[in-house]
């Protein structure tokens, strides 16, 4: 990925004390996001409010749309209008966005969506934490497509991951979802925003060659294909219909194979380049705790206590949620007794861990129905059980 230093105008360098939601807005501005369309929903509103407050001085545009359907639609328009664009929401709003996440995936439109997860289902627990939208982020829209999802565990990482989300989104021309949670979203911590020259961003890759050679798509299962900006004279056509490389509808089984394979493999075929994991004491471990977001910080206490008891326990923190780190789980499974997977849902990512472990070791789910973080004792009990 070709990167350039961030534009200083969007970078509020220095130490700050802010919550995760606000850090997402700062990360977006640093990454060059200049268009935000959103609709208020707890516990994500602080991102929108921060962006709205900062937009005039940065020269960005904030618009509060009439609903989440409109918000994501406006991002698609803004992206093809030449801007980096983002929105923020949580479960109920994300549910309204999923149709156009499919359109963005199909039309290979770069955009970033932060989902500050709260407890569901339905209106559920509007002010309380959860990690229940992990599968929805991956599979929410109809049809086969792939996206990238990242999960921060602190306000600092909210900033860093948002920059990364934009970079991945621009390169792979794909919606990137920041899967955070109410606890990280509302947690105030120190956030250090580096000087602009130290923040590397992927600039929009606008096509500039001859018109007759312009194709909005290249079905080569790779990222990096340029897009056109409305008004540059390339007369692009994009559609949610199955299309050829010119963007024209071709509704056949043969074309569907070409398009769907590209959309899937563009992400999954490059999983090794995309995936980031945070590993601790995995070598020689008997038990590996797989966690993400706020739960990974709760798990630290359980892991430390288990180590005091002499249990060889490692930590695998998922920074990249999707594509899932299949290869790493497959590597580890035969070497350990068990994976322990705590998460604030009824058992979602544990399904992926179990699938990839393929019966080579035990997989223990430490589920939670939302509204609070785990008691570390519960995770510790699972680690002890796993070590038996």
């Amino acid at each position, binding site marked *: 990925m070709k990167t350039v230093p961030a534009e200083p105008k969007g970078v509020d360098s220095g130490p700050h004390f802010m919550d995760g939601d606000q850090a997402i807005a700062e990360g977006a501005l640093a990454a060059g996001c200049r268009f935000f369309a959103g609709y208020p929903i707890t516990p994500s509103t602080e991102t929108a409010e921060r962006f709205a407050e900062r937009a005039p001085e940065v020269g*960005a545009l904030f618009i509060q749309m009439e609903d989440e359907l409109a918000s994501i639609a406006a991002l698609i328009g803004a992206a093809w209008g030449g801007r980096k664009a983002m929105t923020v929401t949580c479960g109920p709003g994300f549910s309204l966005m999923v149709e156009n996440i499919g359109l963005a995936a199909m039309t290979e439109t770069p955009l970033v969506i932060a989902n500050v997860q709260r407890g569901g289902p339905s209106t559920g627990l509007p002010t309380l934490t959860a990690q229940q939208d992990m599968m929805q982020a991956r599979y929410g829209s109809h049809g086969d497509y792939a996206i990238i999802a990242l999960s921060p565990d602190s306000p600092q990482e909210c900033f860093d991951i948002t920059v990364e989300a934009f970079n991945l989104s621009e390169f792979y021309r794909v919606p990137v979802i920041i899967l955070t949670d109410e606890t990280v979203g509302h947690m105030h911590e120190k956030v250090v925003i580096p000087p602009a020259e130290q923040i590397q961003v992927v600039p929009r890759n606008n096509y500039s060659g001859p018109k007759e050679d312009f194709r909005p798509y290249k079905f080569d299962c790779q990222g990096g294909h340029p897009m056109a900006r409305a008004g540059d004279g390339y007369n692009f*056509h994009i559609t*949610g219909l199955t299309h050829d490389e010119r963007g024209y509808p071709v509704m056949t089984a043969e074309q569907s194979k070409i398009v769907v394979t590209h959309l899937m493999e563009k992400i999954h075929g490059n999983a090794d380049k995309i995936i980031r994991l945070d590993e601790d004491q995995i070598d020689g471990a008997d038990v590996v705790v797989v966690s993400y977001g706020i739960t990974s910080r709760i798990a630290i206490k359980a892991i430390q206590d288990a180590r005091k008891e002499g249990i060889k326990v490692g930590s695998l923190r998922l920074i990249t949620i999707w594509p899932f780190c299949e290869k790493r789980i497959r590597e580890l499974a035969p070497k350990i007794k068990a994976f322990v997977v705590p998460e604030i849902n009824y058992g979602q990512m544990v399904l992926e861990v179990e699938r990839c472990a393929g019966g080579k070791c035990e997989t223990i789910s430490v589920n939670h129905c939302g509204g609070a973080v785990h008691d570390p004792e519960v995770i510790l009990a699972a680690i002890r059980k796993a070590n038996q």
Partner: protein
Amino acid sequence: MTTDIGKFKHDSPMSGTLRMERMPHIWCPGCGIGSEVNAFAEAIKRSGIDPKKLVVVSGIGCTGRVAGYVDFDSIHTTHGRAIPVATGIKLANPELTVVVFSGEGDLTGIGGNHLIHAARRNMDLVVICNNNFTYGMTGGQVTPTTPHSAIASTTPYGNYEYPFSLPFLVDAAGATYIARWTSMDVRNVTQSIEEALAHKGFSFIEIISPCTTLYLRRNRLGDGVDMLQHYQENTVLKHGCDTRETAIDFQGKIVIGKFVDKVKPTYLEAVDQCCVKLVGDDYQLYGKTIPEREAEEKAEKEKVAARRAAVLAEQTEANE
């Protein structure tokens, strides 16, 4: 005699405005959308606007296919979402002229919320609404504008709901240019589109149009020509008409004309006014100050006027 399709497409007066390589289109014989697209293409030519700076956005349905046939930057969106996509484009690059061309089911049914909010914001968009009283692509179901008592595939015993009057709806919501014509009124449609392209703010043009295959057949109203006859006999031209008086009854009178044409700050002008007060004269949107953007707009306006004058002179000459 055989027709050389390739030559025909190349020589077509629509070549340059329509993607001739995508012809023939999908619309039925007698459908009004073809005439509307012709009027649109003509209006674009006459308007003098730079075709590079024009974007067409459609939703889903028969009219939703318009975006696929016009030779401009064009987006075929999901059902109902053409207006918010268009809003995103316009706000991302204010120098673009953004046209939404879609059907009444798309714009006022599934997308109705976006229609009223774009009108409320006076978002600088041109919305062309083909109103054929039916969801054509899916087989002729009832829409929010189907006249009371008309038959549709989902109202087989007659429509017991009451329809929207679209000029009244968008007027109440805040649209600043509103006109209604039928697909027979090709010159008026062309002129209205030209005016709307030049208008700053939310423009709404409703075009009543026959769906020959479904609405007309199911209601035993004859074919496309019969419906044009009906339009000729039953349209009432009333420029400036109070939009409360524009309701359409089954096979009743259709009030046509330009109902609203007024000046109000657009969404972006309102943003500028607010931000310049806050930040001062240094205020920039996407790196450009207000005077810089105004100067660019003025220069573009002069080019548009020159192109328009040239096209009109050429047309006058051809007519003489």
